[in-house]
């Protein structure tokens, strides 16, 4: 007989989980905020909120999407609360943020720049999918969109990146 599911009440396993996922939470927040300092604040708030709500996490295997969702909400909340100015893409590139540009080959840096320049409506589902491991159905539920709309956004995101990668773009979808 399978034991009844329980929340993650144990401090040590939950802490291990947070430590394991923290790098990708920081990356996700960084791509949402396009600002390293804001990303760090968002993840800090996320860890606190996750710790307080750890009983809600019934299955450790769901921790990743659960934490990514908290990051998204904390990011939105931070902007709401502080009314932070939106980030100008050109200024981010001009700053040459070392977190985004210091490592990797030139092609990778070009790709980072291209992802950074994607409109938020394309960038967010792409990062959720590739970095967060969300399915298109999960992204649709999270963003309050139809799955068809998510497919279109993801298609257009990748189609723009194809040109950076030296590939011919596919014919756009209606």
């Amino acid at each position: 007989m399978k034991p009844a599911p329980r929340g993650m009440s144990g401090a040590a396993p939950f802490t291990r989980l947070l430590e394991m996922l923290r790098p990708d939470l920081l990356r996700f927040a960084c791509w949402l905020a396009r600002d390293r300092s804001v990303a760090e604040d968002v993840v800090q708030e996320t860890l606190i909120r996750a710790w307080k709500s750890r009983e809600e996490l019934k299955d450790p295997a769901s921790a990743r999407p659960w934490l990514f969702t908290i990051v998204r909400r904390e990011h939105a909340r931070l902007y709401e609360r502080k009314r932070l100015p939106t980030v100008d893409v050109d200024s981010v590139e001009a700053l040459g943020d070392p977190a985004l540009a210091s490592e990797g080959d030139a092609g990778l840096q070009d790709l980072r720049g291209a992802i950074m320049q994607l409109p938020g409506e394309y960038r967010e589902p792409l990062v959720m999918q590739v970095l967060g491991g969300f399915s298109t159905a999960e992204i649709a539920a999270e963003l309050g969109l139809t799955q068809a709309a998510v497919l279109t956004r993801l298609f257009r995101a990748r189609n723009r990146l194809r040109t950076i990668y030296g590939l011919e773009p596919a014919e756009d979808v209606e």
Partner: protein
Amino acid sequence: MNTTDCRHARLHIGAAPHELPAEVETHLAGCADCRRFRDETVSLDARVRSALEVPLTHFRARPQVRSRRFALAASMVLALLLAGGAWWLNPRPALAGEVTSHVLHEAGSWDRQQVLSEADIDSVLQQAGVKFDSKLPVVYAMACPFHGRQVPHFVVQTDEGPMTVMLLAHEKVAARREFSEHGFRGVLLPAGNGAVAVLSRGAAPSEALERTVVAGVE
């Protein structure tokens, strides 16, 4: 070429190359152009993932205290980190999870069939500054960001099916440790001055295979 089918297939491939519906898989079996588009997209996706995995070396190591609210937040996070002391002393389970998580996001690597040339493999090894004499055919090779460093990520063909091999030159593993996460069976092995991870989607890698991989590490 059926234009409508191709457009439908390319929408799905471009949107979710690792999540294709059955009718697109069927279409791919008979459409070389769309198969090429799929291969290009899978390859692009591996690069996108590498690009998204920004190095974290420039992020602050601990929360910044800026106000009473943040002081409270920081103290709670510090408590979390202290509670996690045991984890730092025994990081292997986390390493296994991170390796598995990385492999999950390069699922397309398992589909490769074409054996790569020595030059392709050497290029990846040079990027990572690692030496490895693979005694097995390599069908996927990529230098992937992992823990802030470039790590060779290979898929090799074996009698036991395709296996992922990640050369973790900067990780320490005290002893052989098996793990099973997200449908993968794998093992972390001490090798040279670092470690190596071998993962399978089926049965756990055999000891003979482990010996072959470790023998290739310099």
